[in-house]
């Protein structure tokens, strides 16, 4: 049985009873009277001028209420984006299309079948232009994607120059000088970190209603950021934020894909207002592939320089990152998240340059890890290659260069300090858990038998808990959506008159179990059982401020805010309890649903009496205001920096190139844990997505800009049969960045995994002399690498 204890206990999830009975409410489940359905007519080509667009025939189709094109919505402007570098997306194509799947016309009809029929009946003619798909070709500026932009390179992130105010030193000369040393070993690899499609299993869906009498929108959306969406709608339509209510009910997975504000959300609101009826759109899986953001998409060369005995002297990365055609939300800022962990867990100078390149493809933005899996992949792959070059154990090399426990907070060249860590102990625990020495013996024995078995190791540090208020100065905020200009946490705790507790938080969970975790935080703080705590989220009317759920930030920032609000409520409740017990408030302790004086369990006053007293002036102390609630904003002074290390055991079939993942062992460190069961689950899912990138997933456009991977048949996700059970353990190094000592865990598994798998496969192929194989490691690619190595 799962325990019912609180902080640190694996409490069964409060979310689950509805979900396991099919009674959870997702947006597409909503079917209000009179609801109209949307279908988009989307571009079948990557790049073209639209020479004619005729909706007249389609408008006569059965059930059609309206068809909108650019002219109808031009007055609303382009889609708002937080980071406005590059070309912003028009709500509907403005005379040209720039990627396959771009929305050209919006059909609203009585049902989804009729809407789709009409979308197919729209007459459109294109003057097709050769698209620019290849990243290197785009970066060369031989031809431009958007005539109005100076270059296809929208922005260049460098390690020292990303934030002028910090006055950071350019460490490139140090790295270059190290390469000239006589004892220098320089290892360099060009590697791809391929484009991915997030594939939340719930397709995105939005349902908008407008009441002209009240002048209010109510918008249900499958979003991770309801407040940002509310802000975008109010700004677009010139309304006050209080007149736009956004509700994110159950959200069926997000992984960053629901962290954007999308044109379809704005358009659904527009159509609902225009037609005076509820309007719903649910994307098809094919649309999800072509028109919901993609992630990753880097190609780059990583170079490490070190001594022959394993001391790192410097690291260099030059990469091109694919932005796609239009910038949304954070698009151009995503590589910046990688920059902050460019040096990983290691003390060494770094020269890091990532060019953000526009192409005729779908926009990229945050996909689980967002910039960090890319940065760690390049670093950890090149460290692996370096260890092979000098013939040293890859863990030994890492341990030799880690920041040491007494060096924290460890100020990195990027200007941020790693908060806390004990990296070597983490590796030691992993080596013991996995029986690393035994694995290597097994591998060597298999090699002697002619089998291709590999042991891969990898470490990672990530940057989470967004965020520190100073980041707002470089655009890390929701200010473009009209929200307070920093990513503060926010938590409201209210003890109700019946001694139950309502907690209102500004997160936007999509499966992370916030209703359980927050009930534990508050229940533990107040000494009230978790089953009397109700956690509300995802409704802009309930909560004054919400940043949403992304970047593994929720517990570290909003959880910390809620914790502090809990303490405030407890402080006030102590005064009331003291009044009722005729004692001193400083002596009051709370436990088991009531309060008493420390050291003397009786007399005791139950929470029911405290709550009741708080709401009736004649029974509460004179100097205590009526009511029992507190709202707290929390502004962390630093991000949090979780870390960990993983080991993969693989076997490659030399005849087919098939890779079998035999074991996967991880020891992660996310600081203190509130619910270890949920933490395990987050790491499991993260690992699976890392394995997905390493072995299966690849979003491919051909040279004409056709997306070749538009269905789950062409874009394989890992299935249950592809994965082993994962073997997990943890080290616990709390952070002092927030009062709970928690760091965040949503992305850890993904950031730690892809390089670990590739390192394992390269290890398996080492006897053949293979130095690198680009992801995904599907049989054909691995087989080809084997054939090439065998000449």
């Amino acid at each position, binding site marked *: *049985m*799962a325990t019912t204890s609180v902080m640190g206990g*694996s409490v*069964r*999830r409060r*979310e*689950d009873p*509805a*979900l*396991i*009975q*099919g*009674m*959870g*409410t*997702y947006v*597409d*489940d909503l*079917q209000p009277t009179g609801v109209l359905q949307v279908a988009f007519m989307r571009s079948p080509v990557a790049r073209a001028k639209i020479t004619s667009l005729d909706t007249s025939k389609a408008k006569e189709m059965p059930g059609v209420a309206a068809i909108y094109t650019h002219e109808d919505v031009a007055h609303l402007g382009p889609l708002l984006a937080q980071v406005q570098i590059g070309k912003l997306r028009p709500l509907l194509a403005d005379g040209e299309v720039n990627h396959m799947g771009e929305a050209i016309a919006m059909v609203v009809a009585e049902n*989804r*079948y009729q809407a789709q029929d009409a979308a197919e009946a729209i007459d459109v003619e294109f003057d097709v232009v050769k698209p620019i798909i290849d990243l290197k070709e785009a970066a060369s500026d031989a031809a431009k994607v958007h005539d109005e932009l100076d270059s296809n390179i929208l922005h260049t992130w460098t390690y020292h120059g990303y934030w002028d105010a910090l006055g950071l030193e350019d460490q490139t000369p140090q790295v270059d000088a190290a390469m000239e040393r006589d004892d220098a070993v320089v290892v360099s690899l060009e590697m791809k970190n391929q484009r991915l499609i997030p*594939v*939340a*299993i*719930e*397709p995105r869906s939005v349902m908008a209603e407008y009441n002209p009498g009240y002048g209010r929108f109510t918008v249900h959306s499958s979003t991770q950021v309801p407040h940002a969406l509310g802000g975008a709608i109010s700004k677009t339509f010139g309304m006050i934020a209080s007149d736009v209510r956004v509700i994110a009910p*159950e*959200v*069926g*997975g997000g*992984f960053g894909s629901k962290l954007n504000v999308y044109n379809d959300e704005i358009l659904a609101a527009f159509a609902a207002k225009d037609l005076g009826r509820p309007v719903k759109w*649910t994307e*098809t*899986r094919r649309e999800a592939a072509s028109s919901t953001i993609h992630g990753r998409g880097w190609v780059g060369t990583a170079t490490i320089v070190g001594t022959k005995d394993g001391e790192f002297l410097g690291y260099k990365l030059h990469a091109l990152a694919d932005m796609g055609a239009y910038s949304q939300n954070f698009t151009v800022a995503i590589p910046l998240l990688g920059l902050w962990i460019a040096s990983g867990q290691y003390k060494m100078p770094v020269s890091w340059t990532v060019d953000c390149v526009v192409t005729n493809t779908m926009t990229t933005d945050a996909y689980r890890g967002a910039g960090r899996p890319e940065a760690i992949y390049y670093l950890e792959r090149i460290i692996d290659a370096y260890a092979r070059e000098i013939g040293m154990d890859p863990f030994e090399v890492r341990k030799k260069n880690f920041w040491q426990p007494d060096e924290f907070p460890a100020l990195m060249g990027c200007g941020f300090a790693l908060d806390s860590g004990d990296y070597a102990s983490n590796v030691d625990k992993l080596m013991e858990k996995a029986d690393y020495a035994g694995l290597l013996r097994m591998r060597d024995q298999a090699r002697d038998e002619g089998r291709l078995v590999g042991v891969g190791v990898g470490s990672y540090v990530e940057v989470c808990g967004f965020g520190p208020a100073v980041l707002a100065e470089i655009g890390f905020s929701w200010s473009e959506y009209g929200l307070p200009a920093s990513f503060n946490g926010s938590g409201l705790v209210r003890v109700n008159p019946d001694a139950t507790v309502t907690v209102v938080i500004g997160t936007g969970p999509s*499966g*992370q*179990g916030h209703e359980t975790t927050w009930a534990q935080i508050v229940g533990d703080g107040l000494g009230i059982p978790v089953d009397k705590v109700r956690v509300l989220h995802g409704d802009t009317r309930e909560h004054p401020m919400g940043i949403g759920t992304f970047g593994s930030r929720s517990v570290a920032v909003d959880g910390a805010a809620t914790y502090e609000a809990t303490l405030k409520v407890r402080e006030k409740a102590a005064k009331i309890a003291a009044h009722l017990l005729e004692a001193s408030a400083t002596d009051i302790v709370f436990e088991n649903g009531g309060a008493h004086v420390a050291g003397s369990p009786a007399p005791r006053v139950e929470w029911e009496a405290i709550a009741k007293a708080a709401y009736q002036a004649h029974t509460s102390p004179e100097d205590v205001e009526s009511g029992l609630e507190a709202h707290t904003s929390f502004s962390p002074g630093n991000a949090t920096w979780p870390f960990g290390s993983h080991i993969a055991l693989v076997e490659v079939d030399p005849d087919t190139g098939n890779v079998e993942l035999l074991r996967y062992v991880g020891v992660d460190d996310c600081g203190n844990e509130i619910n*270890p*069961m*949920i933490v*395990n*689950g987050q790491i*499991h*899912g993260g*690992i699976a*997505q890392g394995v997905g990138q390493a072995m299966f997933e690849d979003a491919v456009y051909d040279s004409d800009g056709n997306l070749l991977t538009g269905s*789950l*048949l062409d874009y394989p*996700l*890992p*299935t*249950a*049969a592809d*994965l082993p*059970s*994962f*073997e997990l*353990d*943890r080290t616990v190094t709390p952070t002092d960045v927030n009062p709970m000592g928690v760091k965040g865990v949503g992305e850890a*598994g993904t950031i730690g995994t892809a390089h670990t798998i590739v390192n394992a496969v390269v290890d398996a192929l080492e006897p053949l002399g293979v130095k690198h194989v680009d992801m995904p490691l599907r049989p054909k690619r691995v087989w080809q690498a084997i054939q090439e190595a065998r000449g």
Partner: protein
Amino acid sequence: MEVSMTVNGRAVSADVEPRTLLVHFLRENLRLTGTHVGCETGYCGACTVHVDGKAVKSCTMLAVQAEGADVKTIESLASNGNLHPVQEGFWERHGLQCGFCTPGMIMASVALLDENNNPSEDEIRHGIEGNLCRCTGYHNIVRAVEYAGAKMRGEEPPPPDWEGGE
């Protein structure tokens, strides 16, 4: 077209367009929204229901093809307030996160255990490989099915593996 079938033990009939998918009939005509649509191509399995006792992906079937059939959806699984052992297993072993694939995953797991209530881990993994989950990495889904199998055999389920490490 007129279509009639039994859904969760009740006789239902409706006039539908011939192209109406069974999943849309269940969700939109009968308002049984526990059955989800994840991909419309029969690949993800979120729409899995039982038709005449077999697990079927209801987005690959027309409503009219289910004429006269006995259809069971996730909403029928718990009886008199008691969860099915598979539902209980998913709750006890954290076999779900966002919950979107869960109804289909549970229906597939029930069909699996109905055939073999003592499957090996490998048999479980292959038994549910037609159902995609993006959140759990399947680890705890396998544990949930193991839990349910033990319950259905009248045995004590193995303890959760998050207690005291794994």
